[in-house]
């Protein structure tokens, strides 16, 4: 590992030629699209060895000097910069070639987050996509990516975003109704789908009623819903608190079929409150 990042601010001379020949320059295209065939014109005579070298790929083949060397379809396909040498006993010729991604998208890496979130959250869902050709090269040429979030029972949200350096991203609002949304990214004929679960948010209000049950009080909430009317999931804890004189009794009850119900000791003059999370419901004073 290097000691750290040695950084200086200022201009950087990049005026270096992309290929300095050893004993002769090769005649070959400056760039080709990935997988496209091309030819290299060599000079001299006799046999030699062709090397095409880059981090993404390496090709070595025996060649006949003095003619055209054909590189077949699909032989050089990883996008990047390649150094080219043809070496023989008497000479070395060199050149360079850039391989560019093909223009047709064939694959999409699509990341949608989160996979589950509360309803009615502005810009709560994000999606980002990288576009690749059939050889797995990132297509850096700008392309239109369409993002669509479809919720059951409501109109889909659609955004079209142009890729920059192969990437596009968007943000979407979660729906007002709970349910599974389909989040689709599409470019050309290629699409990728993610499912985003939208769950009710926090309870909006909690309303409790009380009635006598022998020497106890039966407490029951109305169905607990979020502010969009979605039922809060069963299992969500509702807390009942009875205060009588100096004593305080607290009971945590999970929602069952959308309501919470519990019996507490009946004390004349007791005050009973209900809450769930940060939401405080109504308060009852027991007068019987």
């Amino acid at each position, binding site marked *: *590992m*290097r*000691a*750290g*990042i*040695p*950084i*200086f*601010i*200022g201009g*950087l001379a*990049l*005026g*270096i*030629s*992309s*290929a*300095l020949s*050893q004993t002769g320059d090769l005649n070959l295209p*400056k*760039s080709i699209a990935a997988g496209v065939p091309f030819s290299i014109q060599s000079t001299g005579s006799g046999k030699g*060895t062709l*090397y095409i*070298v880059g*981090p*993404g*790929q*390496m*090709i*070595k083949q025996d060649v006949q000097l003095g003619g055209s060397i054909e590189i077949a379809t699909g032989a050089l396909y*990883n*996008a*990047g*910069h390649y*150094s080219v*040498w043809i*070496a023989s006993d008497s000479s*070395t010729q*060199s050149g*360079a070639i*850039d391989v*560019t991604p093909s223009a047709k998208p064939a694959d999409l890496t699509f*990341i*949608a*987050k989160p996979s589950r979130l509360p309803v009615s959250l502005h*810009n709560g869902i*994000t*999606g*980002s996509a*990288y576009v690749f050709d059939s050889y*797995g*090269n*990132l297509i*850096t040429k700008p392309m239109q990516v369409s993002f669509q979030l479809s919720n059951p029972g409501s109109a889909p949200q659609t955004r079209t975003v142009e890729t*920059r*350096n*192969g*990437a596009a*991203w968007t*943000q979407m609002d979660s729906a007002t109704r709970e349910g599974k949304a389909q989040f689709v990214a599409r470019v050309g004929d290629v699409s990728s789908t993610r499912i985003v679960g939208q769950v009710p948010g926090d309870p909006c209000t909690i309303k409790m009623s009380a009635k006598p049950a022998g020497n106890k009080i039966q407490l029951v909430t109305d169905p607990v819903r979020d502010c969009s009317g979605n039922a809060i999931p069963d299992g969500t804890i509702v807390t009942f608190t009875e205060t009588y004189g100096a004593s305080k009794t607290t009971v945590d009850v999970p929602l069952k079929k959308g309501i919470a119900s519990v019996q507490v000791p009946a004390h004349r003059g007791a005050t009973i409150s209900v809450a769930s999370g940060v939401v405080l419901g109504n308060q009852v004073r027991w007068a019987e």
Partner: protein
Amino acid sequence: MIAKSLLMISVLSTAMTAHAADEPSIHVQQPHLQGPRELQEQTAKAVVQDYLDSWQSMNKALDQNRPDLLDRDFVGSAKEKLVSTIKSQRAAGVHTSYRDRSHDVQILLYSPEGLSIELSDNVTYDVEMSSGGKSVGKQQVAARYIVVLTPTEVRWRVRIFQAEKQ
């Protein structure tokens, strides 16, 4: 805030550059971010450092034809392509060295969910190839790389590593 911090780093590091003649010169531009996610200075510094380290790993791996040297810094398609190149080199009896001379790095995208950072690097490097233990040639290259890094347990790893046509 990041620009100011990088400027401070630059002052400190100029001396480091002078003392380390073999080290490449590094220029980090102010991030030109698309996306809503804020990029913390520490994250920016870590991602650039990890990216620069990846050049060292790549150079050693391609020079020694050892794919295992890529494990720390590469993942996904970038690693697959480099491993494939090493296998081809090994089969052909070829070794290559990629000695980076200078980097001009700019962070372009911090994806909204925080799972990828894309950067560009105008890099100059020397590539030297040997076959059968004999040097075949050496070239100086200037190229613009588009790089995507993703976070792993302890560091950012290079997932996409691709030179663009200059």
